C-alpha cells in the first residue's frame, strides 16, 4: 500500500497480525501510552505523540482500514493539524477541495454560500476524501515513525485501573488470534469508535438524543459535469417532502444522502433497484438527463447526538466517536475527533515528561467536552431543521424556507448544516484573560488563524512556521523585539521550551491578530492562543505559561 494506491486496493489491504515479544513476557510489559483504535483519531494521536518523542503502542482489533467512504468532509482545521502531522499534502493532493455550496428549495436555488470567503489561507474550507484514503495516508505516515508500534488483531478484553495518583497504572488484557496477554500502561487513549468497547468496560455510556428519521447514504460512481459544491435540497421535485445532499468525492464518486422518513424500511431502501430510480430522478433534475452510474456502497442510517458525561476516567481518555457522536450535517464528527487528538497529544506528552501535572489532563476533558457541546448544539439544530419532529417545528421550518425565496434574513435562518469550525475554548482554565484591548477573533482559547507571512524574505504560511511540538511566542516586530526575545527565554526557563517567531506588524496576518509592533501572542503546542499582550513582561509570560501547563502559581 502506498500514497498512490487506489481506493479498492486500500479497502482490500490486509495488515498482518504478528506475535509480539510482550506475549511471551514473564510479567506484563509496561507502555507509557496505549492508543486503542487505529481509525483517523487514533492514528492522528499516535503520530502526534510519536512526533513529540513518545513511544506509542497502537492497538486495533481488526486488520483492515475503513471499508466504505464514511467520513468524507475534512475541515480546514483538520487539514492544518494533518499538516503538522506530515500528511496534509497527501490528503490535499488526493482530496477534492471545496468552499462553495448551494441550498435549493423545490425547483429553485435559495442561495449560494462560501465557507472561506477571505483569501490568505493555505488550506481550503474543506476537502472531500473517502475515509479509507485518510486512514491509509495516516497509516503510512505512522509506519514511518519508529516510535509507533501498531498491533493488528489485538483486541482489548478488559481494563483495570489501580488507585489514582502519580504512580498509577492501567492493566489491559488483550486478545489475539494466539490467545490473550496482559500489559500495563501509564495512560490509555480510547479511540475505539461509536460502539467503544472500552467505554462499556468502564461502565460508561454515551447519552443524548436520537433523531427519529432514516437516511440513505450512497456512494455513486458516475461521470458528471457538476461543480464541486455542497448541494442541499429541501423538498426537491425528485424527492418530495424530504431532503437530499450531494457531495463530490475523488475518483468520480459522489456521495448522496436521501432523507427517507422514519417509516422507511432500511433493508428495502438499500436495494439497488430502489436506489436506481432515486439517482436517475435526481440527475434528471440536475442535468436534464439520467447518467449511467455504479452503486459502490449504500447504507441506511439513523442519527443521534450524544456524548459521555466525562471524557476522562482515571488514566483513560476518550477521543473521537467513543466520547461523542453527532449527526453528520455539519461534518463535526471526525473533524472534532482529530481536534480531540491534537488537544490530548501535547498534554499527555508534557505529563509523561514531568513538565506538567496530571491536572493538565483534566483540561483535555473539560476543553473537549466544551467543544463537543458546541458541536452537538450545532448538529442538533441542523438536524431539527432538516427533520422537524413536531407540527410546530415543521411549521416554522417551512415558513423559513418560504420566506427565504425573497428575503435575505430568512436565508440566514435556513439550516442545512452549520459546517464544522474548530471551537474557541472560551473559559478554559488554561487561558489567560486579556488585560489589553484587542479586536478580531484571536481571543485566548481560539485556534490560530493562518495567514501569508514572510520569513527570511520568503513568502510562506504562518501555521507552517509554528514549531511542530511546543509552545511558541508570536512577536510582532518593532523596536521591542530584541528585548522580548531575551525576556521570553527567561520567562520559560525551567518550564518548557518556548520558541519565538517574529512576524511583521503589518500585513494580512498582523491584521488578523490586531497586532501592533511589540504585540506578543503566547501559543500552545496545539496552535491555540493562551495569552496575548501589547507589552508583555517576564512575569506575564511566566504566569501565562504556568497557567497553560496547569502548574500551580
Amino acid at each position, binding site marked *: 500500500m502506498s500514497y498512490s494506491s487506489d481506493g479498492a486496493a486500500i479497502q482490500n489491504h490486509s495488515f498482518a497480525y504478528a506475535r509480539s515479544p510482550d506475549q511471551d513476557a514473564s510479567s506484563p510489559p509496561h507502555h507509557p501510552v496505549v492508543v486503542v483504535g487505529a481509525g483517523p483519531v487514533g492514528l492522528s494521536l499516535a503520530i502526534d505523540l510519536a512526533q513529540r518523542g513518545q513511544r506509542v503502542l497502537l492497538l486495533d482489533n481488526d486488520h483492515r482500514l475503513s471499508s466504505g467512504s464514511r467520513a468524507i468532509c475534512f475541515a480546514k482545521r483538520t487539514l492544518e493539524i494533518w499538516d503538522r502531522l506530515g500528511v496534509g499534502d497527501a490528503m490535499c493532493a488526493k482530496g477534492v477541495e471545496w468552499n462553495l455550496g448551494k441550498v435549493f428549495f423545490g425547483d429553485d436555488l435559495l442561495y449560494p454560500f462560501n465557507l472561506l470567503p477571505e483569501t490568505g489561507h493555505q488550506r481550503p474550507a474543506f476537502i472531500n476524501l473517502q475515509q479509507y484514503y485518510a486512514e491509509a495516508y495516516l497509516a503510512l505516515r505512522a509506519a514511518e515513525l519508529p516510535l509507533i508500534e501498531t498491533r493488528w488483531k489485538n483486541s482489548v478484553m478488559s481494563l483495570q485501573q489501580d488507585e489514582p495518583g502519580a504512580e498509577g497504572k492501567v492493566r489491559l488484557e488483550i486478545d489475539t488470534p494466539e490467545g490473550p496477554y496482559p500489559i500495563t500502561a501509564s495512560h490509555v487513549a480510547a479511540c475505539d469508535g461509536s460502539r467503544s468497547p472500552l467505554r462499556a468496560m468502564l461502565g460508561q455510556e454515551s447519552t443524548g438524543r436520537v433523531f427519529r428519521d432514516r437516511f440513505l447514504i450512497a456512494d455513486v460512481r458516475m461521470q458528471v459535469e457538476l461543480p464541486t459544491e455542497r448541494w442541499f435540497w429541501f423538498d426537491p421535485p425528485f424527492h418530495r417532502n424530504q431532503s437530499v445532499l450531494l457531495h463530490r468525492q475523488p475518483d468520480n464518486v459522489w456521495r448522496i444522502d436521501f432523507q427517507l422518513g422514519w417509516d422507511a424500511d432500511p433493508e428495502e431502501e438499500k436495494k439497488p433497484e430502489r436506489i436506481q430510480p432515486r439517482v436517475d430522478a435526481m440527475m434528471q433534475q440536475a442535468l436534464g438527463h439520467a447518467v449511467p452510474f455504479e452503486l459502490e456502497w449504500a447504507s441506511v442510517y439513523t442519527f443521534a447526538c450524544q456524548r459521555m458525561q466525562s471524557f476522562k476516567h482515571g488514566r483513560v481518555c476518550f477521543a473521537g466517536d467513543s466520547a461523542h457522536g453527532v449527526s453528520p450535517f455539519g461534518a463535526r464528527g471526525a473533524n472534532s475527533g482529530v481536534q480531540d487528538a491534537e488537544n490530548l497529544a501535547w498534554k499527555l506528552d508534557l505529563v509523561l515528561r514531568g513538565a506538567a501535572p496530571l491536572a493538565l489532563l483534566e483540561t483535555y476533558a473539560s476543553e473537549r467536552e466544551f467543544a463537543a457541546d458546541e458541536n452537538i448544539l450545532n448538529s442538533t439544530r441542523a438536524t431539527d431543521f432538516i427533520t422537524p419532529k413536531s407540527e410546530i417545528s415543521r*411549521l*416554522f421550518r417551512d*415558513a423559513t424556507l*418560504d*420566506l427565504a425565496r425573497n*428575503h435575505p434574513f*430568512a436565508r440566514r435562518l435556513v439550516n442545512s448544516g452549520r459546517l464544522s469550525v474548530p471551537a474557541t475554548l472560551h473559559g478554559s482554565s488554561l487561558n489567560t484573560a486579556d488585560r489589553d484591548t484587542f479586536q478580531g477573533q484571536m481571543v485566548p482559547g481560539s485556534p490560530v488563524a493562518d495567514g501569508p507571512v514572510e520569513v527570511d524574505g520568503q513568502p510562506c504560511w504562518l501555521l507552517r512556521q509554528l514549531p511542530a511540538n511546543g509552545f511558541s511566542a508570536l512577536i510582532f516586530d518593532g523596536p521591542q523585539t530584541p528585548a522580548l526575545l531575551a525576556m521570553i527565554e527567561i520567562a520559560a526557563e525551567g518550564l518548557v521550551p518556548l520558541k519565538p517567531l517574529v512576524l511583521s506588524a503589518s500585513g494580512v496576518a498582523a491584521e488578523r491578530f490586531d497586532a501592533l509592533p511589540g504585540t506578543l501572542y503566547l501559543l500552545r503546542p496545539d496552535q491555540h492562543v493562551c495569552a496575548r499582550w501589547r507589552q508583555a513582561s517576564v512575569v506575564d509570560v511566566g504566569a501565562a505559561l504556568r497557567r497553560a501547563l496547569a502548574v500551580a502559581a
Partner: protein
Amino acid sequence: MLITEPHLQAPDDFYEALIDTHRDLDSAQSHALNARLVLLLANHIGHQQVLLQALQAARASTPRTTQV
C-alpha cells in the same frame, strides 16, 4: 426592554389589517402565515433580549385548559 405599554401607531387599524391579512385562508394557511409573520417581525426587532422577553411573555399568557 420589551415594550408592553401602548406603542402601536394605529391600534385599531393594525388589528383590522392583521385579521384582514388572513382573508380567504384556511386554517393551515393561516397558521403558516402567522409563522412567517413571527419570523419577519422578529428579524425587524433583532435584539435578542427583547425577543426572549417577548417569547417569555407569550408563553406566560398561555391560557390554562381548565379554568372557569
